């Protein structure tokens, strides 16, 4: 006979204000099998947990139902409490009477009635709960960092520092990411390359770090502590181990009309190229779309000039497979395409640029060697208009609904740098809001206004019109003056919204992690677990989780590293015992379940059975590897005979819940 204890939480007034908790406890006390039913102010508090523990011991409870907040919140708390009182933790069920009852309903009578039904449902389920024991699964002491920007580099360095091997997979020929393209950093205005490149070198020299540049993640299998990742090393047609990075090939390459992606296409590079001087690894890469040798078989200059003999036109994509205990995602961001914003004339006028393009225009390694010149006629611009929130905070399909967070600050930086270097330049910044939360950020922005006399105008630019004289008419609104302005500008800089890298979505699918509607990875908890994904063993670093500036990115990168290290430190981890299992006597061996298992957790074995008719028979039956199974339950429905069931969410438990609700 079951002895079930019911504990109803007031959650202060969070529950008690709309649910008559006394009535709930009273009603559930009458349910069959319930031997004790109590209510208390805060069940999750020390004393609340004591109450539960004492009841388990004194009443010799066989099951516990907590009517409280969401199980996503405190299920573990109460499971631990039960375990410490000697009750199997999986004999605890939570009735969610806060998020799914008291918080959404106003009428006390109906909310109480619903709370009783939810409690009754949990009691019905707990009747059928069985004690479950967790399995231990070993942890591979190696981490994978996907993305080699500042986030990935920082995470990898921290993990390596802690003594674990870590691999970086970077899709570009070099690590460095967006930060390598940035000229100066706010709010200190130190040069990005000066602080980034030492880190890149450090990463390349750290013997615990392996950098797979020009590589992509092709497949991910496994689970926390034991991922198997297939990495595709894209053919760069240059033998990485032989190339010395001397750069002779790039000089001699006759094909020099390739848009240089590192400089945002503002100048050209050769078909064989090293993205930038401080690239890591400093290895050339052949762009097969432009290489004349690869396209027509006529050239081969690079091969001739390479004394190391590193050129290999026949190189193929290769795949490597590696086990990892933890994976950190650091796939970063990109500015959005502005094709849809006709009003800003981005596609019509070369002097309308994005902020990232401006970074390159101002950078010493950029197309103009650090002198700010108009892309169109290489003249010095005298009036520059910055437009904020281009595509950010846009509720339509052209833009992004969120604030891109970094634009206010980099625009202040750009305006300030321009005013400092070229005091004869008038700089206008059109803004909706200026958002500067961050240490020394607002002071930075005020300096731009007060010290550098940047004209900040509240209001948006409505229309940008290139004129025949090479000038640009910027039509904007000045909301404070209540007037429409026309500025005769030489350049317009658009603070384009940023979006997650396009590779993130397929990666999320492979990793079985969640994304929000904007393709940012979703963290396990927005406040309490900001650097973990909901999938165990997958951590989030940098802008792939949401817009971030460099200091924040680095902070999160280290936090993600710390979480990964915490996992890698363990020799084994406890597996979720809520996994599928097959009743071998009923299994037909038809393989339906195997086909729907995303983890390959099901295999088939030929086993000898004593049949109900007392004969012995060798039959093919399904067998679930509980360490690999993640407990989704797809197999349970694919199985026609009902042999496959899921612990913790068994057919009978769910049907008991259905019955209790419909009663």
């Amino acid at each position, binding site marked *: 006979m079951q002895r079930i204890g019911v504990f109803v939480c007031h959650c202060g007034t969070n529950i008690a204000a709309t649910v008559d908790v006394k009535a709930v406890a009273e009603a559930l006390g009458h349910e*069959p099998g319930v031997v004790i039913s109590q209510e208390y102010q805060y069940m999750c508090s020390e004393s609340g947990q004591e109450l539960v523990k004492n009841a388990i011991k004194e009443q010799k409870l066989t099951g516990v139902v907590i009517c409280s907040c969401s199980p996503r919140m405190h299920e573990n708390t109460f499971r631990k409490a039960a375990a410490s009182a000697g009750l199997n933790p999986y004999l605890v069920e939570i009735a969610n009477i806060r998020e799914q009852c008291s918080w959404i309903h106003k009428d006390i009578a109906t909310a109480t009635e619903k709370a009783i039904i939810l409690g009754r449902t949990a009691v019905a389920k707990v009747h059928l709960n069985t004690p479950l024991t967790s399995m231990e699964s070993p942890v591979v002491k190696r981490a994978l960092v996907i993305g080699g920007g500042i986030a990935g580099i920082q995470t990898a360095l921290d993990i390596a520092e802690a003594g674990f091997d870590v691999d970086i997979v970077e899709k570009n020929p070099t690590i460095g990411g967006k930060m390598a393209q940035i000229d100066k950093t706010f709010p200190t205005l130190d040069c990005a390359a000066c602080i980034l490149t030492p880190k890149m070198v450090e990463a390349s020299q750290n013997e615990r770090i392996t950098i797979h540049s020009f590589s992509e993640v092709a497949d991910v299998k496994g689970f926390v502590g034991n991922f198997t990742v297939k990495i595709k090393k894209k053919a760069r047609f240059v033998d990485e181990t032989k190339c010395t990075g001397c750069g002779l090939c790039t000089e001699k390459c006759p094909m020099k009309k390739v848009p240089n992606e590192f400089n945002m296409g503002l100048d050209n590079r050769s078909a064989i190229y090293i993205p930038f001087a401080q690239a890591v690894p400093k290895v050339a890469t052949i762009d097969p779309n432009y290489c004349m040798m690869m396209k027509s078989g006529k050239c081969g200059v690079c091969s001739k000039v390479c004394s190391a003999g590193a050129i290999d036109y026949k190189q193929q994509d290769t795949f490597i497979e590696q086990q990892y205990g933890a994976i950190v995602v650091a796939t970063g961001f990109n500015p959005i395409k502005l094709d849809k914003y006709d009003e800003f004339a981005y596609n019509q006028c070369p002097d309308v640029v994005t902020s990232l393009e401006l970074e390159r225009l101002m950078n010493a390694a950029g197309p103009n060697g650090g002198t700010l010149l108009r892309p169109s006629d290489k003249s010095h611009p005298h009036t520059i208009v910055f437009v904020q929130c281009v595509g950010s905070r846009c509720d339509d399909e052209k833009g992004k609904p969120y604030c891109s967070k970094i634009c206010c600050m980099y625009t202040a930086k750009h305006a300030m740098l321009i005013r400092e270097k070229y005091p004869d330049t008038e700089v206008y910044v059109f803004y909706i809001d200026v958002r500067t939360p961050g240490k020394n950020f607002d002071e930075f922005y005020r300096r731009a206004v007060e010290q550098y006399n940047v004209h900040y105008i509240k209001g948006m630019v409505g229309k940008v019109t290139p004129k025949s004289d090479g000038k640009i008419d910027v039509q904007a609104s000045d909301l404070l003056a209540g007037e429409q302005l026309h500025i005769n500008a030489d350049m317009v800089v658009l603070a384009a919204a940023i979006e997650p890298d396009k590779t993130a979505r397929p990666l999320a699918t492979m990793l079985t992690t969640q994304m929000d509607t904007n393709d940012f990875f979703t963290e396990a908890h927005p406040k309490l677990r900001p650097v973990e994904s909901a999938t165990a063993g997958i951590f989030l670093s940098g802008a792939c989780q949401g817009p971030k500036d460099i200091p924040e990115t680095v902070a999160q990168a280290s936090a993600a590293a710390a979480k990964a290290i915490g996992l890698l430190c363990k020799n084994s981890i406890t597996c979720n015992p809520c996994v599928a299992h097959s009743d071998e006597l009923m299994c037909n061996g038809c393989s339906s379940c195997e086909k729907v298992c995303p983890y390959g957790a099901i295999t088939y074995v030929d086993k000898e059975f004593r049949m*109900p*008719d007392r004969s012995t028979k060798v039959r093919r039956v399904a067998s679930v590897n509980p360490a690999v199974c993640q407990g989704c339950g797809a197999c349970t429905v694919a199985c026609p005979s009902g042999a496959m069931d899921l612990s913790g969410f068994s057919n009978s438990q769910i049907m008991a819940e259905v019955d209790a609700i419909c009663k």
Partner: protein
Amino acid sequence: MQKISKSRLYELFDAVAAKQDLYIPTDREEGAAEYKKYESGMKLTKELNTVRSAKDFFFPQTENLAEFRLEGKNIEVKDIREECDDFVIFGVRACDAKSFTILDKVFLCEPVDSFYKNRRDHGTVITMACTRPAETCFCKTFGIDPTVPGGDVSCFDDGENIFFLANTEKGEKFVESISAFLEDGDTDKLMEVQTRAREIMGKLPLANLSTGNFGGDKLNEYFNSDKWAELSEACIGCGTCTFVCPTCQCYDIKDFNTGHGIKRFRCWDSCMYSDFTKMAHGNPRLTQLERFRQRFMHKLVYFPANNDGEFGCVGCGRCLAKCPISMNIVKVMKALEAK
């Protein structure tokens, strides 16, 4: 004998149905007849017999026995038995009529099955003599004369009239109640029809099938016969034969949780099913061979052993027509007899 012209038959039905529920065999679809509660306009089937037997009237496929109400931790048992209303079944064939006496032996012996008895007490069975038997008929094997059917009232069709003959007190009461419709009739033509029907009976392909080699004393002879393996080989273990059989009377008792209480009901079970008589230790009959043997041994050996030689089959031929793999009692009898 008293008769009614066939042209006035439905008038009679209307009158009977006005006082109590009347069931007649009617066409559900082409070639498939079933008993239905009579309503004006309904026509009698031309089929020889219904797909399902008439046993449903007294022993329905499912029947509630008791109810338990759950209130918190308390259980209240409710007796749901109540007297049923009087009803009349018209058009029962001799074989089905005989099946009632077989079912009576099971349900009306001590302890009496009150549910069955209740229905039996309130039901009046009006039979109809056969004139056009089918090739699957072998009621004669079990001593049934289909031209003189039993029941409370026997009816005979001479082509133009239906004659009524009361066999029991209940039957007399019924005939009395419809006397306004009846008139005395000449039975010459009826005798002719009867003679012709008997002649056909003699010519049926199964006319010579006999129970001579079967009976209560044949247990040892047949139980271990090596014929069972071959006979049962093709059996798919469905319950068609049992469910269309007028004499199969096995049932299971189950509880159903309605959410606000428990309904305890009984429903037909089939000895052909793998979970029939399943007990804590498992099923006593482990293979389909044993289950198959059980059904036929019961009809041909065990039942007569316990019921003064009465066989558990009436030769209606339904299983011959309906078995998905065409295995049936006739084939079994012939195979067992063959030395």
